[in-house]
C-alpha cells in the first residue's frame, strides 16, 4: 500500500516534469521491462534498446496515463517498443535461428545461473537445457502469441493486466495464451530427449 502511494506521488511529481521522480520509477520497473523485452526479442542488446526507448516514451507520454496500473501501462509501451524493434528486424534480415550457435556465456541468464551457488552442476545443466529449449520455441512463435505468453506465463500477469499491456480485450489475451502454450508444446516435442524426466512431456513417454 505504501509502495502504491509512493508510486502515485512519484507519478504526480514526474508529470510536473520532475525527472528525478521518474527515474525512481525507472529503477523500480527496469528489471521487469528488460525481462519482457528480452523474452520477446531474444537479444540482450535489442532488449536494452527497447527498454530504454520504452522509458523515454513513457516519460514523454506521462500525461496520457490516467490512473490504473502503472506497471501495465508501462508494459504496453514496452511491448510497443518491442513491436517496433521486431519490425525493424524484419526489414533487416538476420541469421536464421536454426543456424545460430549460441554461446551461453554471452547470455545474461547463463551468468545468473552460474552465480546461483545452490544449484548442483547436473541440475544446473538440465535447467539450462530446458531454458534454452523454451527460449528457442518462444522465438519461433508469432510475435503476438509470444508477447501474450511472456506477459502471462513468464512475468505472471493476469489476463486483465496483460490485456491492458497489449491493448487488446481479455478474450484475445486468453485465446493467444492458449494457442501459444499449444504451439510451445508442439515445439518442445523435438527437445524431448534433452528435457529432464520430471519435465518431459507426455508425448515422449507415450507410444
Amino acid at each position: 500500500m505504501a509502495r502504491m502511494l509512493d508510486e502515485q506521488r512519484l507519478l504526480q511529481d514526474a508529470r510536473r516534469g520532475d525527472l528525478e521522480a521518474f527515474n525512481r520509477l525507472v529503477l523500480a520497473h527496469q528489471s521487469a521491462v528488460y525481462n519482457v523485452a528480452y523474452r520477446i526479442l531474444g537479444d540482450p542488446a535489442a532488449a536494452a534498446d527497447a527498454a530504454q526507448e520504452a522509458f523515454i516514451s513513457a516519460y514523454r507520454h506521462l500525461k496520457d496515463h490516467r490512473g490504473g496500473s502503472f506497471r501495465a501501462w508501462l508494459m504496453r509501451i514496452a511491448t510497443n517498443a518491442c513491436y517496433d524493434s521486431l519490425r525493424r528486424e524484419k526489414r533487416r534480415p538476420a541469421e536464421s535461428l536454426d543456424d545460430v550457435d549460441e554461446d551461453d556465456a554471452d547470455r545474461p541468464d547463463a551468468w545468473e545461473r552460474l552465480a546461483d551457488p545452490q544449484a548442483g552442476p547436473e541440475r544446473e545443466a538440465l535447467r539450462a537445457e530446458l531454458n534454452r529449449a523454451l527460449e528457442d520455441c518462444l522465438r519461433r512463435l508469432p510475435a503476438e502469441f509470444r508477447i501474450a505468453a511472456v506477459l502471462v506465463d513468464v512475468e505472471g500477469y493476469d489476463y486483465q493486466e496483460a490485456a491492458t499491456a497489449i491493448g487488446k480485450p481479455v478474450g484475445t489475451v486468453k485465446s493467444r495464451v492458449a494457442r501459444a502454450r499449444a504451439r510451445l508444446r508442439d515445439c518442445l516435442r523435438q527437445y524431448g530427449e534433452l528435457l529432464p524426466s520430471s519435465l518431459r512431456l507426455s508425448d515422449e513417454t507415450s507410444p
Partner: protein
Amino acid sequence: MSRLSDLPPDVIETLSAALDGALNSKEQAGLQARLRDDEGLRLALEELRQVRAGLGMLPRLRAPRNFTLTPEMVGRRAARPAYPRLRLATALAALAFALTFGLDTFALRFAAMPTALQASAPAEGIGAEAPPAAAAEMMLEAAAPAEATPAPSAANDAAERSAVDAFSSATATPLPTVDPALKAGNVGEAPAPEAPAAALPAPTQAAELEAQESDQALADALEPLPQEQAARRESRWTARPLQMMTAALGLLALGLGVLTLRARRPT
C-alpha cells in the same frame, strides 16, 4: 486418446484458462465432468501445465545497466534554477523604483521652485507701486516665514504708520520707502515715526482711502496669480506619468520579491 494438437481451439482455450483459474463455476464444473471421462483431455491438460510451469521457471534477468533518463534523452535542457534570475530581476526592479522615486521627488521640488520665484517677483513689483504696508508684508513673508503668525498685527501697525506717513507726505515729503527696520523684520521694535502733533486730526479720509488700497494690495498679493496656478497645474501634469511609473515599478519589485522568496523555498 486426445492429443493436444488434435483438440479444437476452444477446448484448448478452456483447458488453458482452467490452469489460470479464469473459468467461472459453470465452466469449471463442465470441464471437471469431461476430464473424468476423457483421459486424453487430462493428458492435454497436463501438457499445458508443463509448458506453463516451464515458462514460469525461466530465470529473471538482471538489467545490464540502468535505464534512468537524462535531460538530453527527453529532449530538454536541464532546468536552470529560477532563484538567481528572480533575485537579479528583483534587485533591478527595486533599483529602478528607487531611481524613479528619487526623480519624482526631485521633479516635485523643482516644479515648486519657479512658483516661489514667481510669487516673490510680483511682490517686488507691487512693493514698488503699492503702499509701503503691502510691500512690507510681502517682504516679511519672503524673509521670515517662521514669523508668519505675528505678521497680521505687524501689518496693521504698518498700515497705521503708512496712514500717518501718507498724511505727512501729503503735506510736504515724497512717498516714503519702507522703513529699514521693517525690511529687517523688526516691525514690533521699530520706533514710531515722529509726526507733528498738529497734523494728526486733519487727514482721516485720505488715510482711510490709503488703508483700503493697501488692504486690497495685500489681498491681491496673497491670492495666487494665474501664472502660479498654471505652473502648479503644469507641474501636476508633468509629475503624473512619473508617479505612475514609480508606482508600477514598486509593484513590480514587490511581485518579483514574492516570487523570489517562493523560488528560494526548498521544494
